[in-house]
């Protein structure tokens, strides 16, 4: 069953690429509007050989990593505080919910104005996108800790601290990881869009520069690299999840 699923998926991808190749060669013809997969592959190779790709990837990766790590650490911390104190939750909850629902990416031009064209404006955009799902999931995970499990530990005379360490933290772990996983996709979007608004280098900058010069193969090359990074990171994360919280597998 699973084997067959894999086969079908591979066929589907291969068929899609073929259609794409055929469409762009025969139907569209004008490479101003669409680049064929073969052209994109060639563009990636050229960009890689010239060293341009590495430069762009490096910048974007640094922006993403800095923003992601800062947002994860502070997001988990804020989530912990909100779960521990009703008052802190009362103060922070409206902001967290409000900002989570806001497309904060629209603030990117403002951040650019504040922090300049360098990487920190992008880092801030990534933070605003990654932080809130992490906060919300951490808080929810800690708060939904099963009362029955807490009571079980309490029956042995456990202290609050023991309950927190032995029950609350591990039962919140799957939620925290889900929030972090959600943050990968959001963070990548943040990097690219923030770079589109203004930057000296990065995959988003490569995209806007290629669009300005009608270089579709390069534009698609950047998109493909981004997609690959997103898929790889999410898959890697699922792998980590399976090992860290195996009990949520089913």
């Amino acid at each position: 069953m699973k084997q067959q699923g894999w086969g079908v998926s591979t066929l589907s991808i291969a068929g899609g690429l073929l259609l794409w190749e055929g469409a762009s060669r025969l139907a569209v013809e004008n490479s101003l509007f669409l680049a064929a997969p073969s052209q994109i592959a060639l563009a990636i190779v050229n960009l890689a050989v010239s060293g341009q790709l590495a430069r762009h990837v490096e910048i974007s990766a640094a922006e993403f990593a800095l923003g992601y790590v800062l947002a994860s650490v502070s997001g988990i911390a804020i989530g912990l505080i909100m779960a521990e104190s009703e008052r802190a939750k009362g103060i922070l909850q409206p902001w967290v919910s409000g900002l989570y629902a806001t497309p904060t990416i629209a603030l990117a031009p403002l951040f650019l104005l504040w922090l300049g064209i360098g990487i920190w404006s992008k880092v801030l955009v990534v933070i605003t996108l990654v932080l809130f799902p992490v906060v919300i999931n951490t808080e929810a995970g800690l708060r939904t800790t099963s009362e029955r499990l807490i009571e079980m530990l309490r029956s042995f005379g456990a202290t609050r601290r023991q309950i927190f360490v032995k029950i609350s933290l591990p039962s919140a772990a799957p939620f925290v990881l889900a929030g972090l996983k959600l943050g990968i996709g959001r963070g990548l979007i943040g990097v690219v869009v923030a770079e589109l608004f203004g930057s000296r280098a990065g995959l988003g900058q490569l995209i806007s520069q290629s669009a300005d010069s009608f270089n579709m193969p390069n534009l698609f090359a950047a998109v493909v690299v981004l997609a690959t990074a997103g898929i790889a990171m999410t898959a890697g994360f699922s792998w980590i999840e399976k090992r860290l919280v195996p009990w949520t597998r089913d």
Partner: protein
Amino acid sequence: MAAVAPKLSVSGLSKSFATLEVLSKIGIDIADGEFISIVGPSGCGKTTFLRIVAGLEQASAGEVRIDGNLVKQPGIDRGFVFQSDNLLPWRTVLNNALIGPEVAGAATPQAKSRTLDLLKLVGLAGFEHYFPRQLSGGMRQRVNLARALAVDPKILLMDEPFASLDAQTREIMQTELIRIWEQGRKTVLFVTHQIDEAVFLSDRVLVFARRPGRLREIVDIDLPRPRALGLKRTPEFVRYVDHIWSLIEEDVRQSVLHEGG
């Protein structure tokens, strides 16, 4: 029995939630090594009673003493076996069973080897490193029992531990519990809905009535030990069951008719 000091002594125990009186002036002395069951209709406060003895809830009046010492909060002199197994899904069977000693700061190698013996005793040899999701309901309840026993409690408190098991598994678990209990003869307080389960397991059955929850009658079960399942088909056994049923029948009927069970 009157000559020795009781293991567990409950006197004048009452409990109210707001204006609702759940338990009214319960008094009972239980000797060391006695197996006591508590039966009664829904809402008779039998689980609340057990939870107060465990220290998970506070009484409104009256007191609970173990070996003469006043009970105020939970502690490892009591082991609580819950209705739902409450196993931690991220811990193995062994580490679940060890959590009591761990909380008490006594997770020593000795505690570990004793817990391994207990897992063997409850029939889980070879499953020490399994995770709860890999076990059946009956096996999970065995871990639940081993976990309570791992702190070597003076009193074992069991809250309908077999209620969620299917009928056949429940019967097996009853005989298993008897077998395990025969090894150490700990004092047991066992709450159940099943009258036959109470009679089968116990030295004495406390029959509770409802509104307010109170001790209606103490039935001495004078059946020989060790007991096997065949006992359930003897006339003496059936007589005990009938007698207890007659004590709670009216209460049950009322609760079913007026509150939909």
